[in-house]
């Protein structure tokens, strides 16, 4: 790598990098917990209100479905600034790690909602019919049977979303969200320091691999039943 002339001063950069890793993990974790829970709810509502399903409701399904179809295709980098007013109202600012979490959580909830819905729709309707025939309540069927039935694919879906959220967090860095994306832009891209960029890439790959490994392992354990 002799092309890279700039000798990186890791002595002063390392603490900044460490801070960035912490920020990324924090953003991703909060987004996954809040967005994941909201997404599960959105997905469950979408599934249950579908025509012919447990809580079939044309209006609720139609509105929610439309909302997701509108939000989901917006490129995240544009979405970040588009929801600025919401971010300001919730976090009090549009800059920094806390502010980045707001658009990340909204987008994650919407995408996870769709992922959850798709996995629930794949659950054998015969299971719902059997539970109805037994006389179970609809809420108990939805949360006690349908979601557990789809647990393995749901875990894989969430693992997939973990990676997507890491991706989002990097973009959040572009608008001052902090984290590894921010680090790569400031110390790598803007200072022509390819080494800093590659180190960031390596760390992100490691984070993603850890997440994928845990997700696959959990799904395997559930599937083995």
């Amino acid at each position, binding site marked *: 790598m002799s092309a890279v002339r700039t000798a990186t001063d890791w002595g002063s950069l390392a603490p900044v990098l460490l801070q960035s890793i912490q920020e990324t993990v924090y953003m991703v974790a909060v987004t996954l917990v809040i967005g994941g829970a909201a997404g599960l709810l959105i997905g469950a509502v979408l599934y249950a209100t579908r025509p012919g399903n447990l809580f079939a409701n044309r209006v609720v399904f139609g509105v929610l479905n439309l909302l997701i179809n509108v939000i989901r295709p917006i490129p995240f980098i544009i979405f970040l600034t588009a929801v600025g007013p919401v971010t300001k109202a919730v976090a009090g600012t549009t800059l920094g790690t806390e502010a980045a979490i707001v658009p990340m959580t909204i987008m994650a909830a919407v995408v996870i909602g769709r992922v959850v819905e798709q996995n629930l729709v794949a659950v054998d309707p015969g*299971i719902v019919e059997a539970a109805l*025939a*037994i006389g179970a309540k609809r809420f108990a069927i939805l949360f006690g049977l349908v979601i557990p039935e789809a647990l393995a694919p749901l875990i894989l879906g969430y693992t997939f979303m973990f990676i997507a959220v890491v991706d989002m967090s990097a973009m959040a860095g572009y608008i001052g969200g902090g984290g590894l994306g921010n680090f790569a832009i400031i110390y790598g891209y803007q200072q022509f320091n390819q080494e800093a960029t590659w180190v960031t890439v390596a760390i992100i790959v490691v984070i993603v691999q850890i997440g994928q490994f845990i997700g696959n392992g959990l799904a395997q354990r559930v599937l083995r039943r």
Partner: protein
Amino acid sequence: MTERDGGPVTVISFDGVSKGFPATRRGSAVSALDDVDLAVERGSIVGVIGYSGAGKSTLVRLVNGLEKPTAGVVEVLGVDVGSASATQLRGLRGRIGMIFQQFNLFTSRTVRGNVAYPLKVAGWKKQDIAPRVAELLDFVGIGDKANSFPRALSGGQKQRVGIARAIAANPELLLADEATSALDPQTTGEVLALLKEINRTLGITIVVITHQISVVHELCDQVIVMDGGRVVDSGDTYRVFAHPRAALTERFVSAVTQGVPTGETLEALLLGGGTLISADVNEFTSEKAAEVFEKHGVRHTVVFGGVTDIRGRQLGTLTYRVHADEGVLDAVVAELSTRTRAQLLRAPDAPPAQETPARGEEVSS
């Protein structure tokens, strides 16, 4: 309505029941049931038979209120399904067990978890559930599978779990929707035997939905034949089999008992010489048929057909080869015809050219 003793008590009654489904984007409006009347008595095993699309599944879903009638009155265990509230319907479903063609087990739960589910729904105490589940699994013969997950079980074992789950909460009524259609013949026999035992030892009324006449033949006291959403024949199984009132019933019955030979089979039989006479066997048993032949001094050999047994009574059609003069034959056929359906069999077209008589078809009586 729940007295166990005393005279027959109607557990299911349909009075002029129709069920239509409105037109959707995918298809036009459908009339699944059309003016159906029926009554099921406590303790009986009733078969509902018909081809797919005959309305059988709709009928069973009306019984447990998964569907509501668009016309008429459905009364089940004293509950008017059409006007019952959601809570009343859940209560009713708790008194009705159901088993399915594809078993519909909860794959995320163990066998134990599946069987315990209706008990939890019915509000059983935890300490009562465990022994009840163990007892049920022993009853259906899979006591060693409590901790297995459904995917590790064979089809027959899955249906046993389905049956244990269906009868767990002591239902008064068991609905079996094509419960043996996904099983091989041997497993089907085992499951039917289990259902029979449930009916006999637990006194649970069973309604069996099927397209397999053999299931009705082996299991059911009463049968309801459905075609195009209507009941075309119904009553005591033997009566319906022996004296079908609908063309569809005859078609089903001929699958159990070989009827009168036709086509190439008939041509081959005719080549064997003599005269062919076929006679239905019902209350007019094969022994009685033999007596008629003997009375007229006619040597007779069974060459085609079959007789089956329905609760100790014969049913079937036999074709005999006889050698006798024209006059005697006429007298025999005339006498048989007064007691059952009998006929002389002749070649469908012109008499075939004489060739070597076909063998192999002959079965001496």
